């Protein structure tokens, strides 16, 4: 049925007659256009630069509109999930929303994992899905899925656009909702007849959007901010706990300024890495399940925690009932529902991170001008002494001892990557041990440089994410740290890399197993490796990459690691996609690791030591 109606549309022509019609205007001077053209025009007017997508029946009118314009570049992926991750990473790296276009049914459902990934990490994204024609909705038509229903729990909002004339305003609203407040993905489901090339309507793109039901907070409450400033300056053992919200909310600069002004220690969540310089003395590293010893100890012993754009995730707090017993908690977040959800906030502040921090900085300045003895310098000195002792005792440098002739340690690969890229690359990652090693050992100095799926933990994210970043910044060095397991979840995109000449570098920590699963099985299931290994059936990644038309390396000896890494990032391969397959010690675990059910200070520090007894095996 769909086929027939489409064919009849083609007979009447999208050719010459249609093209002239596009320049007709209505009585008020608005251009008349088809829904398909309106959709693309609205995306242009909203500032979209790329569309990451994959065509199909219900989206064909829209694809034809793309063909007849020049402003937006469409990137053809090999799987819709990859399109969503590319758009997502484009947004993470630039701060501008990514745009995805998929067809109905399987196109839409394939996009769900990527939508959920963006939702969990509060990433602005617009997903346009084709839908079967209005008249066929609900009839179990070919390639029909209730996209609004299927995506509902993993979107910030969604629209079903039933009429062409509603398209411009809907797109404008979608961008407004996706990018303001706590950002997130917005789905726009477009039935095929809405984009019919023969049905023309007037195009009005609203420059600004006002909705009575949607007014996200901007400025924080002044009284609360004054209370927070006073508490901050009265603290004896303070710590700044900064999350992804600082990056999304463009608050890195002012956060860094406040931390430096007060000489307070800073820890970042997995999502927050880069919002404070990772190589700075005041930086304690990541906190939480695989956080550093000093970060977790400092959190546990703090008398004041200022949480900024962080949400006390279970991977951070460990057991919430044992969380940081002495700490007064200040919590700044744009989403009121994140405040006092897991840990009760003593001083909650709802507002845009950057706005609130600027107000806070000003009040701190005023208070210190009146009383230059704040904060207590003696208390702060002894607090730093304790932190430095923790750092010296069990800092990350103690985590690895490479031995000659032994397998390459995965941590060494990250350090080698850090050297080869001057610590200044965009690093995307997949999910698992390699992700934690990258988070621990690559010292991110700037925001938006560390791109990973923190909330949902989506394997297969890394490769398309690197591609999305490279599209955003064609000249930048972009590397994907992955594992052989994660890589194989979206490796079809190597073909897309060739099509668009993307010079991304893929560094695989190949341990011939699902490393993090295996680690848990080692630690909690008596070493029974249930379905976490496949070493006898892995492809040779070097030749696999070469088959896709790229450059491949394989490293098995630690002595070759730095040289290969340098070569991969050298001028020689400036315009090539490169895959570096590094065979690492398959027995290595990620440490520290939180002891389940404990407080933040309860950590395994190696296979034989823990912070609780020093020795547990």
């Amino acid at each position, binding site marked *: 049925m769909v086929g027939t109606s489409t064919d009849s549309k083609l007979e009447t022509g999208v050719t010459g007659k249609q093209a002239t019609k596009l320049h007709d205007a209505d009585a008020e001077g608005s251009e008349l256009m088809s829904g398909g053209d309106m959709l693309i025009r609205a995306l242009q007017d909203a500032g979209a630069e790329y569309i990451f997508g994959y065509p199909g029946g219900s989206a064909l009118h829209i694809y034809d509109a793309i063909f007849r314009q020049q402003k937006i570049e469409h990137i053809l992926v090999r799987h819709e999930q990859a399109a969503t991750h590319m758009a997502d990473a484009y947004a993470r790296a630039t701060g501008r929303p990514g745009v995805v276009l998929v067809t109905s049914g399987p196109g839409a459902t394939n996009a769900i994992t990527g939508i959920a990934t963006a939702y969990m990490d509060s990433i602005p994204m617009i997903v346009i899905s084709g839908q079967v024609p209005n008249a066929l909705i609900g009839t179990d038509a070919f390639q029909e899925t209730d996209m*609004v*229903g299927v995506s*509902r*729990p993993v979107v*910030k*909002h*969604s629209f*079903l656009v039933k009429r062409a004339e509603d398209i411009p305003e809907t797109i404008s609203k979608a961008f407004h*909702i996706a990018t303001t407040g706590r950002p997130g993905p917005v789905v726009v489901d477009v039935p095929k007849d809405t984009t019919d090339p023969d049905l023309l309507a007037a195009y009005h793109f609203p420059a600004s959007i006002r*909705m*009575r*039901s*949607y007014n996200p907070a901007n400025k924080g409450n002044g009284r609360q901010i004054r209370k927070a400033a006073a508490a901050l300056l009265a603290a004896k053992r303070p710590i700044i706990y900064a999350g992804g919200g600082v990056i999304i909310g463009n608050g890195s600069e002012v956060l860094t300024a406040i931390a430096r002004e007060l000489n307070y220690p800073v820890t970042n969540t997995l999502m927050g890495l880069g919002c404070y310089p990772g190589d700075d003395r005041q930086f304690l590293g990541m906190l939480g399940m695989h956080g550093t010893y000093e970060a977790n100890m400092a959190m546990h012993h703090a008398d004041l925690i200022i949480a900024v754009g962080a949400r006390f995730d279970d991977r951070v707090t460990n057991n919430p009932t044992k969380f940081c017993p002495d700490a007064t908690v200040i919590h700044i977040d744009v*989403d*009121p*529902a994140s405040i*006092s*959800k897991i840990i*009760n906030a003593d001083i909650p502040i709802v507002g845009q991170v950057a706005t609130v921090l600027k107000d806070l900085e000003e009040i701190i300045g005023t208070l210190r001008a009146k009383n230059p003895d704040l904060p207590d310098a003696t208390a702060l000195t002894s607090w730093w002494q304790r932190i430095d002792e923790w750092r010296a005792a069990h800092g990350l440098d103690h985590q690895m001892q490479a031995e000659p002739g032994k397998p390459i340690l995965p941590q060494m690969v990250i350090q080698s990557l850090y050297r080869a890229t001057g610590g200044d690359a965009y690093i995307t990652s997949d999910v698992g041990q390699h992700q934690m090693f990258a988070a621990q050992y690559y010292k991110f100095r700037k925001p938006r440089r560390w791109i990973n799926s923190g909330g949902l933990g989506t394997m297969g994210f890394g490769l398309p994410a690197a591609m999305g970043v490279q599209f955003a910044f064609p000249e930048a060095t972009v590397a994907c740290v992955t594992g052989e397991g994660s890589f194989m979840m979206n490796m079809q995109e190597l073909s897309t890399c060739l099509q668009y000449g993307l010079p991304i570098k893929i560094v695989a920590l190949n341990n011939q197993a699902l490393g993090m699963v295996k680690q848990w099985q080692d630690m909690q299931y008596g070493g029974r490796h249930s379905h976490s290994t496949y070493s006898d059936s892995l492809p040779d990644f070097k030749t696999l990459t070469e088959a896709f038309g790229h450059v491949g390396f394989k490293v098995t000896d630690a002595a070759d690691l730095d040289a290969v890494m340098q070569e991969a990032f050298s001028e020689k391969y400036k315009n090539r996609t490169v895959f570096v397959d590094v065979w690492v010690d398959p027995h290595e675990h990620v440490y520290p690791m939180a002891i389940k059910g404990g407080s933040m200070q309860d950590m395994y520090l190696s296979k034989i030591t823990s912070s609780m007894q020093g020795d547990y095996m």
Partner: protein
Amino acid sequence: MRHIIAVLLENEAGALSRVVGLFAQRNYNIETLTVAPTEDPTLSRLTLTTQGDDSKIEQIMKHLYKIIEVVKVIDLSDSEHVERELMLIKLRAEGSAREEVKRTADIFRGQIIDVTPTGYTVQLSGPSDKLDAFIRAVGKISIVEVVRSGVSGISRGDKVLTA
């Protein structure tokens, strides 16, 4: 503790499913739910009752407010309010029981809205516990069918919930 939450939301397709979906998704419980357009046809008013301690109710309110179509949210149980529920109940009423059923309905200020030789249908409104009490009073044996509307509520005095 039982809370009565009133929500004003845009009268749009899909808005209700977001509210109901939220409760399923976040593992909250809906005991009763009632929804209809207001005097402004672009707005619907939804009243639901749920159970939870203060922190859970706070989270429910915050998450309801995050739904884009939700305009206003209020916990009516926070202050003085009036709540009413409507019940239509079909009762077996034969022989000596016939007079007893009518008497009980009168005591509860119910109205008989349908009559057959073997039964009555009674309409009763009031707070939920009054409806519960009526059901107990007539006894299980005489009940044929029960329809309850779920709770509606409104604040006392000058306090109003408007867009």
